[in-house]
């Protein structure tokens, strides 16, 4: 007990600067994540979620189930451009909700510094993927799709980040 009290109250000697650097560098090196690693991590999450949404919402006429009901409903109700935006929201935006909810605080703060960059990159890679898999892509529709995808991703991500931050501060 006395030893613990001594531990609490005694701060008379400090380590030297080189020892501080050794410890801090060791921890920093171990915790570091490169932007590429982080990008691949969130791209992986987005891909899984995106593929799941293909079960009920086709993208550029690509579908895993040939179920086009949701697409026709949005197309009929909101017109072609808004429909494409909603498709972008469903395919990429929902992934951002999950990303914001499950990645750790370090990754949240890294993405928070450049959210448009990260989600534009994700969107760009998905468009490339659709082209490779033979989707029918037109410039106008893809622009609206990308707009819906990027904006929703940034908004969803920031909302979830804020909720987690407020929850943490409680």
């Amino acid at each position, binding site marked *: 007990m006395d*030893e*613990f009290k*001594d*531990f*609490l109250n*005694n*701060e*008379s*000697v*400090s*380590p030297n600067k080189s*020892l*501080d650097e*050794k*410890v*801090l560098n*060791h*921890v*920093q090196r*171990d*915790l*570091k*994540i490169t932007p590429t690693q982080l990008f691949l991590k969130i791209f992986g999450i987005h891909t899984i979620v995106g593929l799941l949404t293909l079960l009920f919402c086709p993208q550029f006429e690509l579908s895993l189930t040939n179920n086009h009901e949701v697409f026709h409903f949005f197309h009929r109700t909101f017109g072609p451009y808004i429909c494409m935006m909603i498709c972008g929201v469903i395919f990429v935006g929902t992934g951002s909700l999950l990303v914001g909810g499950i990645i*750790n*605080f*370090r*990754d949240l*703060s890294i993405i928070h510094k450049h959210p448009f960059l990260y989600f534009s990159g994700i969107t760009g890679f998905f468009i490339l993927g659709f082209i490779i898999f033979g989707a029918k892509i037109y410039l106008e529709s893809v622009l609206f799709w990308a707009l819906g995808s990027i904006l929703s991703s940034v908004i969803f991500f920031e909302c979830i980040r804020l909720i987690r931050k407020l929850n*943490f501060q409680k």
Partner: protein
Amino acid sequence: MNPFKNLTDEKLMILYQEDEFQAFEVLYARHRARVFSYLTKRLPHRDDIEEVFQNIFVKLHKSRSRYDSKYKFLQWLYTLSRNELLDHVKKKNINTTQFNEEFHPVEERDISDVDLDDLPLGEQEKKVLDLRINKDYDYKEISHLLNIGPSNARKIFSRAIEKLKRSLYG
């Protein structure tokens, strides 16, 4: 400026568990002198102090996921520091008499739970151990009570600690 500098240790640990380096920086800055002072009082050589100091923070880093924020961080850090110190003493077979007389980490290890009668100690050694540890007498008082010289009391105590250490550690 570090955004986490006003958070409690326990909150910082949660962030650190989520790989946030800046949280570790604050924790390190807050407690580095405490850990270093603790070791300085107990280890005679600078090299040993620095080695154990580094080991403590490496261990803290590796086992951060096992920390439960329900418990006080300082208590956890103290236990970690103490165990690391004891491991070092055991590994390097450092003679306890080299320590500052007031702080023998080995002698304080669960000594109150040890039945002195079960130990392979002489009667006088048991008496000195009991007076020094359980009754907290200094060597002058012990020498007066047992009618021996203070330096002799100190020697008997050191010998008893050696025996006790061998008995506890094998």
